[in-house]
């Protein structure tokens, strides 16, 4: 579904991405792991159209046709189904939970569908439903993550981009979140590309994994393969 070839991205004077290759098949969970500053967030931001591409191929196959991400505006990419759930969740704290979810489907004109999607979400996450009129800033970290994912889901994404879902969350909550993601992928067939620092969880969840270092992909394989790979173990899985 997603094809990235030889992507180069420059921010300011720095060459952040130096020719990366990625593919994500429809229905798959792919993960991108690596140290801080490797370029993972930059990759996601480029995929959602927020950063210009210096060179390379960047295509989304929606099943109805192919979209050249390089030439498409961010707004249209959201419309096409690429939804980016940013680092640190970034929910709108001053708005209510319901308004946050409502905004997730900002571009959708089918308000009946949106209403249904939101009520389905409340069934899945009763806490959000109970507090739907509350300001989102009052939620705990884990609840905010639920809200952020929920906000992304309301848009019925074809490709869900998640930037460090585990960031700042307690281990138990993180596990719950990842379990939810797995169920989401299994039941609703949502394709995901997850950027993660928590390599262990990410590799356990993912079908396909890519390791990024200094703007290049240095390793790729299935999640299981990389979990068993001693080099990966040493670099990313060794300490806590």
């Amino acid at each position, binding site marked *: 579904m997603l094809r990235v070839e030889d992507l180069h991205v420059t921010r300011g004077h720095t060459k952040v991405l130096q020719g990366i290759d990625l593919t994500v098949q429809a229905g798959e969970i792919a993960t991108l792991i690596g140290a801080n500053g490797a370029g993972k967030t930059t990759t996601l931001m480029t995929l959602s159209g927020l950063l210009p591409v210096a060179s390379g191929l960047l295509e989304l196959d929606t099943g109805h046709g192919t979209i050249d991400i390089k030439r498409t505006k*961010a707004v249209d990419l959201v*419309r096409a189904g690429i939804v980016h759930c*940013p680092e640190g969740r*970034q929910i*709108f704290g*001053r708005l209510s939970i319901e308004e946050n979810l409502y*905004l997730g489907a*900002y571009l959708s004109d089918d308000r009946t569908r949106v209403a249904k999607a939101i009520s389905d979400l409340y069934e899945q996450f009763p806490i959000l439903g109970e507090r739907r009129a509350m300001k989102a800033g009052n939620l705990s970290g884990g609840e905010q993550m639920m809200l952020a994912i929920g906000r992304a889901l309301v848009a019925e994404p074809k490709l869900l981009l998640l930037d460090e879902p585990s960031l700042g969350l307690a281990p138990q909550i993180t596990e719950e979140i990842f379990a939810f993601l797995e169920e989401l992928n299994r039941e609703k067939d949502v394709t995901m590309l997850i950027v993660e620092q928590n390599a262990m969880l990410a590799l356990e969840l993912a079908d396909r994994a890519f390791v990024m270092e200094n703007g290049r992909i240095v390793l790729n394989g299935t999640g299981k393969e990389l979990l068993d790979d001693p080099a990966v173990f040493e670099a990313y899985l060794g300490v806590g």
Partner: protein
Amino acid sequence: MSDYLIQQIVNGLSLGSLYALVAIGFSLIYGVIRLVNFAHGDLMMIGAYMTFGLVASGVVPWVALPLLVVAGGFAAGGLIERVAFRSITGAPMITGFIVTLSASIAIQNLALIFLGSQPRNFNFPEVFRMRLSLGGADVALIDLVIPVVTLLCALALTTFIRKTRVGIAIRAVAENPFAAQLMGISIGRLVFLVFAVGGALAALAGLFWSGKYGQINPLMGFLPGLKAFLATIIGGVGSLPGAIVGGYILGFSEIAFVGFLPSEYSGYRDAFVFGLLILILLVRPQGLFGESEQERA
């Protein structure tokens, strides 16, 4: 209640409404792009001159006048955004500041060139200059119409911001433009809309101002514009209800200052207002309803 008091209250309501209308625009714009739009007060002047032009042409029926002026203000506000602000998105605050100040000076002087520096007088028809007796006091009808219309506008706008999709999007952009973009919200379009709506309201204030005072000149927008910014600060920048409340607080304070202090002090009206501004900035810069801004590094 003494009729003098009634008169002052009506005056305060009327003046406060004018400030509130302009302050709303300031607050909306600041909330979304974090810039003080110096040219906003001049939109009031543009509205006043549009009124003058339409009235003088004699072609336009009275009923259509407010609608046309508001539409004109909408267009003018949007135009200013396109011309002056579009190109400086993302620039540091000082740049934005200088640009809006320059835009204001340019507009004022263009008005001086094309509209002449002489103040223009004009009168609305009898129906607006009517006076009534309210509890024994002699008040102008227009001073009662203004607050009513203003409050209706305020109500409409507040509903818009709280209930409609676009209104919620505006609040989202005000809080976190980056995340808003990820929802597919087009920031550029929203900024345009906010400028245009602010312009429409300011133009309406211009219409009212000319009806109330009967005299306009090209530089008339600057001082009220600054005072409206003060109103915004009183209420808390970025807060819509704050702007409205601030407008009325300012209007009433100004009237009270002139109305209840001995007349030899009335010339100090503006000094009082701006002294108040400085005081508020020192004591409670976030105003009544605003959030305190983070300390900048």
